C-alpha cells in the first residue's frame, strides 16, 4: 500500500493513506519528500513549498488559498489553508474583517456568544 496518494499531476498536495511521522522520507514520482510533522491518515501533505495566498491544488483544481506559507512536507489543513467560497464573514465589512459570529461552540461543546472577532482569534 502506498503511504500517500497524488490524485492529479497538477496537485501540490497529496493525501496520507497512513499515519506519517516527522523525518520519514517518501519517494514520490522519482523525488524524495521529507515529512516535516505528524500527519494523520486522510489528511494532506504539501508536495512542494506553497506561498501564502497561493492556490492549494487537489483533484487538479484549487481547493482554497494558503493562509500562511506552507513548507514542502508540511501538514496542510485548516491552520494554513482557507476556502475562498461562501465567505459571508469576509464580505460583511469593507475592511475584510470577519463579522461577529452569532454563536460559537465553546470548549465544552455548548453554545456561548455572541463573541467578538478579537476573542475568536485569541
Amino acid at each position, binding site marked *: 500500500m502506498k503511504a500517500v496518494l497524488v490524485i492529479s499531476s497538477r496537485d501540490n498536495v497529496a493525501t496520507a493513506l497512513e499515519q506519517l511521522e516527522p523525518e520519514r522520507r517518501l519517494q514520490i514520482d522519482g523525488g524524495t519528500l521529507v515529512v516535516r510533522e505528524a500527519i494523520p491518515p486522510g489528511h494532506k501533505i504539501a508536495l512542494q513549498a506553497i506561498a501564502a495566498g497561493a492556490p492549494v491544488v*487537489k483533484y487538479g483544481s*484549487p481547493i482554497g488559498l494558503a493562509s500562511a506559507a506552507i513548507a514542502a512536507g508540511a501538514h496542510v489543513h485548516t491552520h494554513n489553508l482557507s476556502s475562498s*467560497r461562501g465567505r459571508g464573514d469576509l464580505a460583511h465589512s469593507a475592511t475584510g474583517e470577519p463579522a461577529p459570529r*452569532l454563536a460559537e461552540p465553546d470548549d465544552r461543546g455548548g453554545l456561548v456568544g455572541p463573541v467578538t472577532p478579537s476573542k475568536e482569534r485569541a
Partner: protein
Amino acid sequence: MSERPGFMGYRRPDGRVGTRNHVLVVPTVICSSLVAERIAAAAAPVGTAVPHLAGCGQLGPDMRVTHETLAAYCAHPNVGAVVVVALGCEQVIAQHLADTARRHGKLVEIVAIQAEGGTVRTTEKGTRIAQGFAGALATEEREWCDISELVLSLKCGGSDYTSGLASNPTLGRVTDRLVELGGSAVLGEIAEIMGAEHVLAARATRPATATKLIRIITRVETEARSLGLDIRGTQPSPGNIRGGLTTIEEKSLGATHKGGERAPLEDVVAYAAPIARKGLTVMDTPGLDVESVTGMVGGGAQVVVFTTGLGTPTGNPIAPVLKVTGNARTARQMADNIDLDVSAIMDDSETLDAAADRLFADVLTVASGRRTAAERLGHREFAIHRRNPTI
C-alpha cells in the same frame, strides 16, 4: 429476457416504473403526523408514512414546496396506494394530494381527524383502509424493466477522505454506465457543488443549463454573504474536518465524482421537481442529508445510492437507500448500516472498475426488491426543505 441490463419493477398506469410497492400514509400537517405513523405501522413494512413538521403556518414559497413535495410522494412510482390523513383546518389541501394520487392511477382514500371524531376513530378507520390497500397491492407482480427506466439518486454523507478517493468515484463509474445505457441520475446538495461547478458546467449540453447551475450556486453564496455568515461553520462539517477535509472546494470536488466523469449534464431542477430528462440532472437541495434525499426521491428517483466515510444510518420512507463505504473501519464498526464495502480500493487490492461492477449489480438487485440495510433497520427519515420562518 433482454440482453440489456434491467430489473424487476412495478409498471404503473402512468407509464413510470417502481422498485417498491408501498401503501403511503401522508399526513397533511404536523398535527396528523402521529396518526399517520400509527396507521402505517399497522400495515408495515408495506405501509410507510411521511411524518413532517409542516403543512400550516407557512408562507407562500414554503407552503408550495410542502404541497409539491407531498404531492410528488403521492404520485411516486414506488407507491401503489395512498391514505391521506388530514386534520381539517390546515393549509395543505388533502383533496389535492388525493387527486394527484388518483391521476397517477393509485388507490386512494382520505381520513380526517376532525371529521372522523378523534385520534382513535381515525387511526382505526385509516388502519382498515391501509390493510385493504396492502391486500390489493399484494396481488401485483413485478415485471422486467429496462435500465433506462431507472432514476438513481446520488448522495454522500458523513464524508471523509475515502469518499473522494473510493466510494464516490465508484458511484461515478456506475453513473456513467447508467447514463450511457439511457438511464437517469440526480445529484443534489448545491453547497457541495460549490467549488466544483466548473467540472459539471463544462458537461452541460445547453448553455442555459450551465447558467442555471452557476446562478443557483451564486444564490447560496449570496445568502451566506447577506447574513454576514461564514459557510465554513457548517461546510465542511466538524466530522469532515477531523477526517482530513479542509475546505468546501475540496469536499465538493470529491462529492461531484458521484456524477461520473462523462455523463452529460442535461438539466437543473428545483427541489422535489420532476426529473424529466435522461442523463444527469442537478437538483437544488440543501446539503442536509435527509432533506436532500427527500427532495431527490420526490423528483422521481426510485433508488438512492448513499456513499459514506464516517458512516450514517438514514433511509427514506419509499425508496431503498443503498449505503456504500470506502472506509474499512466504518464497514466493520457500522456493519449493520453498510450494504457495500469498497475499502479494498484504498489499499489497491480492488480496482475502481471492479468495485463499480459490484455496485452496478447491487443497484439492479435492490431495484428488483432486495431490501437494503436501511430498509431492514426501519430507517425511513423524511424532512421537507424549509427556507422561511414559520408564521
